[in-house]
């Protein structure tokens, strides 16, 4: 024990020295290890925190991808916000034939739940070598759950969109339709195909659903009454050229385009071009007055037929008089119109028809727009026949829009199917003066009060208009079949709406005293349409039986003096 108390020997000192050195080394090593561990723990801790706090976002994005599918095609609504076309989510049934265990049993079960499928067609699809085949697109929810509950292997559902038109055929020629892949194939659906997909807000049309219904039902009724093969109608706002209603009959159900005959898809208002007959006299008179070649009290002898080429042009109601313009217009004298155009001259006539937009296809938001048929070589003969509406084929849309300009104060605007917001009115271009426009209003009123348009007289609404009964060309010859039109506007003192009605090949019967003319068939349609829709369109009725103006009274007195 004593020995141990002795001070450290040299050997011991040496040992202590060695221990101190190894102590230092151990400390250094320890530090290195510690730092290593701290770094490792920090990395792991950091990663843990990162996983805890940040990973849910990545995860949720992944999960949400499935449910965040939005409707791809925007709605189409009318001017009052009524839905005309919308897209609904449906499920479509497909098959992966490679995973089907028993094609026969599967096909049998599917045919039972979905009665419109044929067993054989399903079976061939199930047996095909492809990896994918549609069995049925757009199932109803009941059908979907029925198929789902059978739990058939190889069968699956795909979320799809289906275009739905709640009003069926009412807007078929305006909206057009889409195919099974939701692409627009006609009408507004085609014209705005890309816009409807890129812009999610509803597309607002200028159409009024209620007025559209009235127009269609009235035309339909008269078509039935007079066994007509077709009919068309158009209502436009006179001061903006917005289309408030447009229909063409026969029409089609946009849900069943596969079953539709091609002629039902034809839009008479915009695609069809016709010789419009006497309706053209509105424009002839307006341009003659506007050109200055003819004054309102200019007189022309209409007692003798005029020779135009090989033909002798007569009047439908010949009058042995030297008539002024209101008389010519009232009696719808072809002879008078020819005299007027001759006074105007071919270049000016051509120029005015161009200004009215009759010589080129109108610009409209529809793919179905027909180009007019205009004579290649334009001689006086052409102008003479065009004066009373033959020898030029134009669409009802074109002439209606041109007539708007003659009664709205003289401004021509582009026709449109889109709602124009307050204060965004197209400035348009002036085609006739205010004065001519005023004269035209009075002339049109005269025809409804005392001329061929008498059957359009609707109490309280001061309608003005012009009839047009044109013979149809069949196999290159004029036939006995007519296309009758009536172009009108109301109220005539300050026109708000233009109403154009056209009936193809009506047959006269005892209701029309055997006549198949515009005055007996088209004019009454306008009367009914105006009487039913004026209050919806916000037109105030007037109390007088015959609205008037000083100019109108002079026309009336002059026009009626020879015959009453």
């Amino acid at each position: 024990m004593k020995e141990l108390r002795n001070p450290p020997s040299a050997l011991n000192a040496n040992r202590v020295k060695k221990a101190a050195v190894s102590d230092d080394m151990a400390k250094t090593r320890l530090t290195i290890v510690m730092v290593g561990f701290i770094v490792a723990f920090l990395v792991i801790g950091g990663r843990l925190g990162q996983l805890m706090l940040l990973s849910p976002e990545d995860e949720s994005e992944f999960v949400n991808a499935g449910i965040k599918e939005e409707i791809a095609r925007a709605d189409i609504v009318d001017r009052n916000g009524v839905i005309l076309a919308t897209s609904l989510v449906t499920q479509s049934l497909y098959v992966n034939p490679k995973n089907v265990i028993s094609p026969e049993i599967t096909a049998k079960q599917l045919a039972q739940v979905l009665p419109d499928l044929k067993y054989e067609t399903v079976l061939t699809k199930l047996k095909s070598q492809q990896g994918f085949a549609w069995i049925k697109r757009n199932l109803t929810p009941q059908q979907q759950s029925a198929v789902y509950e059978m739990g058939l292997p190889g069968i699956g559902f795909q979320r799809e969109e289906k275009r739905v038109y709640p009003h069926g055929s009412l807007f078929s020629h305006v909206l057009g339709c889409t195919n099974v892949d939701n692409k627009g194939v006609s009408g507004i659906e085609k014209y705005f195909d890309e816009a409807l997909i890129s812009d999610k807000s509803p597309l607002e049309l200028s159409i009024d659903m209620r007025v559209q219904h009235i127009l269609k039902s009235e035309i339909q009724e008269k078509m039935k009454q007079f066994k007509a093969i077709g009919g068309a109608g158009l209502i436009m706002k006179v001061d903006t050229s917005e289309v408030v209603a447009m229909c063409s009959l026969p029409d089609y159900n946009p849900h069943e385009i596969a079953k539709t005959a091609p002629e039902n898809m034809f839009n008479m208002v915009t695609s069809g071009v016709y010789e419009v007959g006497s309706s053209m006299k509105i424009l002839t008179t307006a341009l003659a007055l506007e050109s200055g070649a003819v004054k309102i009290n200019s007189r022309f002898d209409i007692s003798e037929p005029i020779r135009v080429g090989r033909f002798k042009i007569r009047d439908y109601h010949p009058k042995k008089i030297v008539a002024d313009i209101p008389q010519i217009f009232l009696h719808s004298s072809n002879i008078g119109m020819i005299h007027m155009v001759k006074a105007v001259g071919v270049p000016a006539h051509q120029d005015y028809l161009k200004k009215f937009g009759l010589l080129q296809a109108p610009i409209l938001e529809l793919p179905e727009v027909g180009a007019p048929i205009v004579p290649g070589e334009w001689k006086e003969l052409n102008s003479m026949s065009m004066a009373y509406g033959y020898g030029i084929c134009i669409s009802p849309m074109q002439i209606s829009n041109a007539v708007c300009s003659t009664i709205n104060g003289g401004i021509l605007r582009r026709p449109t199917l889109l709602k124009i917001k307050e204060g965004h009115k197209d400035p348009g271009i002036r085609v006739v003066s205010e004065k001519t426009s005023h004269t035209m209003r009075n002339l049109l009123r005269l025809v409804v009060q005392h001329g061929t348009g008498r059957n359009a007289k609707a109490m309280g609404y001061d309608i003005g208009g012009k009839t047009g009964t044109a013979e149809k060309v069949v196999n290159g010859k004029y036939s006995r079949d007519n296309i009758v039109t009536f172009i009108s506007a109301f109220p005539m003192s300050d026109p708000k709406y233009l109403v154009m009605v056209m009936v193809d090949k009506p047959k006269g019967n005892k209701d029309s005293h055997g006549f198949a003319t515009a005055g007996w068939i088209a004019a009454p349609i306008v009367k009914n349409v105006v009487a039913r829709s004026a209050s919806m369109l916000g037109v105030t009725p007037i109390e007088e039986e015959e609205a008037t103006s000083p100019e109108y009274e002079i026309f009336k007195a002059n026009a009626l003096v020879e015959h009453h």
Partner: protein
Amino acid sequence: MKLVTFIFVIGSILFGVVLFQVKYRVSSLESQLQVVEKKIADNQEIIKVCQAEWSYLTQPDRLQKLSDQFLGLKPLLHNQVVDLYEVMRVVEEENLVQAVLQGHVVSGEGS
């Protein structure tokens, strides 16, 4: 030294607990959000269906048939719309008649 370690240990435990709580809260909120978003999407689809159905059910053709059957409503006639001044005139006339009948106003013929 021991105190520092002690604080460090307690601190990391606390931190861990808070972290876990935040994580669970976030994930539960996230799943709630998903449920709500799914519900919104579902409801939007239902609203679209309802709107389409409303438009379908209010087809003028159908309403007209129903009206003919149950209500007997007729189109508005031009003489059913009158000027406000006309209404005022009728009301004033009526007032005058009432006044005469009650003897407040003596008419020209005298009674």
